[in-house]
């Protein structure tokens, strides 16, 4: 089962890379001229070269040779040169990616935990007053991430001053592994994380609730009650079985959270990939856009694989199936 997933991710990676290669070459007109026109005369030779490379113009090669060349460059870690920053895309990304991974990782785990626990309770005590949480959570889910981020930033950051805003850490501390920096990191991360958790928690909550309701009707739960187990144990009993579909969906949800988190970064000026992507889009910095897309896709695929391993560990049935 794991092997199947791995091959799926490899195919996905190949599709993403190929799309990345083909898209600029399918663009009508002469993008080099357009871009140079936009940069209004202040073009360096390196910039022209970067644009030509990104669009595969002026190489005088056929598409297949270009494709081979593209792969070759990728494998040595060369993602081209950013047009506006005039630095290699890979080095631009190196400084941004850890922020994004940290932010998304923490928020996904938190959201999963909070959603699963509340979902368990909602499922067990269905029909009680707790049910009023459902429409509230649904509303937060329907709000676009960036809008929720803006409102949260405005209310709790700019007006109430409960949280520090804009950036990932205070300007007054030097980055490094000491207490002040870590503390500042956590304080600045609170609002972005809260935003992402609020927006994404409803999915986990509802999924878990529905599975719990289905589980409660199963005989083994009735048996547990009949044996006279304390309520907490019975809930745990049912929850352990109900959580499996949620874990199976973890890999799918990561993609959605990433999309949202990119926008949250934007709102909070978090120095991650999202902010970079917007700048790249506004400046039509195609090599940078492509590089970001590739890095995001690869990261999501790696996270998916991790989630699958987690599921594999959690559900013994997947292991026996693999053995047979």
């Amino acid at each position, binding site marked *: 089962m794991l092997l199947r997933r791995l091959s799926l991710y490899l195919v996905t990676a190949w*599709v993403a890379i190929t799309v990345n290669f083909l898209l600029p070459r399918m663009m009508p007109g002469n993008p080099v001229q357009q871009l140079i026109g936009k940069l209004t005369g202040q073009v360096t030779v390196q910039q022209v070269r970067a644009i030509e490379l990104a669009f595969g113009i002026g190489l005088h090669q056929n598409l297949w040779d270009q494709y081979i060349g593209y792969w070759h460059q990728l494998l040595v870690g060369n993602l081209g040169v950013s047009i506006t920053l005039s630095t290699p895309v890979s080095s631009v990304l190196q400084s941004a990616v850890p922020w994004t991974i940290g932010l998304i990782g923490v928020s996904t785990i938190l959201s999963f935990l909070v959603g699963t626990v509340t979902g368990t309770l909602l499922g067990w005590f269905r029909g009680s007053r707790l049910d009023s949480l459902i429409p509230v959570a649904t509303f937060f889910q329907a709000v676009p991430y960036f809008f929720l981020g803006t409102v949260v930033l405005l209310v709790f950051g700019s007006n109430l001053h409960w949280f520090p805003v804009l950036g990932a850490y205070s300007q007054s501390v030097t980055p490094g592994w000491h207490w002040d920096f870590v503390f500042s990191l956590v304080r600045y991360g609170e609002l972005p994380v809260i935003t992402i958790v609020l927006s994404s928690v409803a999915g986990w909550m509802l999924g878990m609730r529905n599975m719990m309701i289905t589980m409660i009707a199963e005989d083994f739960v009735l048996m547990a009650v009949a044996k006279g187990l304390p309520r907490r144990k019975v809930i745990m009993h049912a929850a352990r079985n109900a959580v499996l579909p949620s874990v199976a969906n973890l890999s799918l949800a990561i993609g959605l959270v*990433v999309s949202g988190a990119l926008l949250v970064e934007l709102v909070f000026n978090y120095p991650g990939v999202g902010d970079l992507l917007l700048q790249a889009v506004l400046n039509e910095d195609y090599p940078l*856009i492509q590089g970001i897309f590739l890095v995001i*896709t690869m990261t999501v695929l790696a996270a998916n694989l991790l989630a699958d391993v987690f599921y594999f560990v959690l559900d013994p049935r997947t292991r026996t199936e693999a053995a047979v």
Partner: protein
Amino acid sequence: MSAVRVPRSPKVLIGAGLVAFFAVLTVVGPWLAPDNPNATNFTANLRPSSSHWLGTTALGQDIWSQLLVGARATMIVAIVAGVVATLLSMIIGVAAGYLGGKPDEGLSLLSNVFLAIPGLPLLIVIDSYLPAGGRSNSFVIGLIISLTGWAWGARVLRAQTMSLRNRDFVEAARIVGESRLRIMMFEIAPNLLPVLASSLLFTVLYSIGAYVTLAYVGLTSTAVWNWGTMLYWAQANNAPLANQWWWFVPPGVCIALIGTGLALMNFGIDEFINPRLRSAGLSGRIRRTSGLPRRPRLGFTPVARTATPRATWEAGSR
């Protein structure tokens, strides 16, 4: 069993009401708008007042008019993307589930690949290569969004089709000698209706989010008014930092409300598909009058059965 009856829980009613309201707004919104949304001949940065219900922008445009006019583009893109994505997911999902074997492997791989690629970055990449004409065309944008939104539905429909393909009525159609296309279209597809409806609501919801996001990032034509471009301009003029809530809150709330409406309607369909979820929709009053315990007992799903058909809170009761 004759007619499909959707549960009439308050959740579903509120959801349907919200969706209907915005559907009407899509049609009549641009006619109701008191001013041209582009006209800049008012005083800039006005607070909401009787002459400008939602105030004006930094350029002196009437925000209420922008909101009304913007409803149409937002909804058209969402509907185009939702319908196209649902059709795609139906064709691919049903074909994969029914045909099985090699075609199934190929189609499943295709939908899994699309599920694994993060949607928004892919959208941004595709969109950033669009020429200006494409960016202002609602249908082009809708089609691109549908391209990234069909895979989830296809997966669900495939699973549902696989559970149907060996049922007796499908078997009977096969023995009679119906063609595969006919079986898929007329035997299997009608039984997928609830799942299909749920998938449509879900993709419309996704498409609204995707479109508004693209517009907010500045990747759709800023000349086409939709709720995303409103937020784009509000952000570009620092409305949030200037506390001009009347500028950026209304479009966001509209997006959230239509989204909530769609999600609430989806609950109704979920409850239709899985009857066990339904009892949660019983209100406290019904529970008391029908003598049910306040807290559901283990292993039993409380069902309200009353003689009068008016109180059929349960759908499709046989």
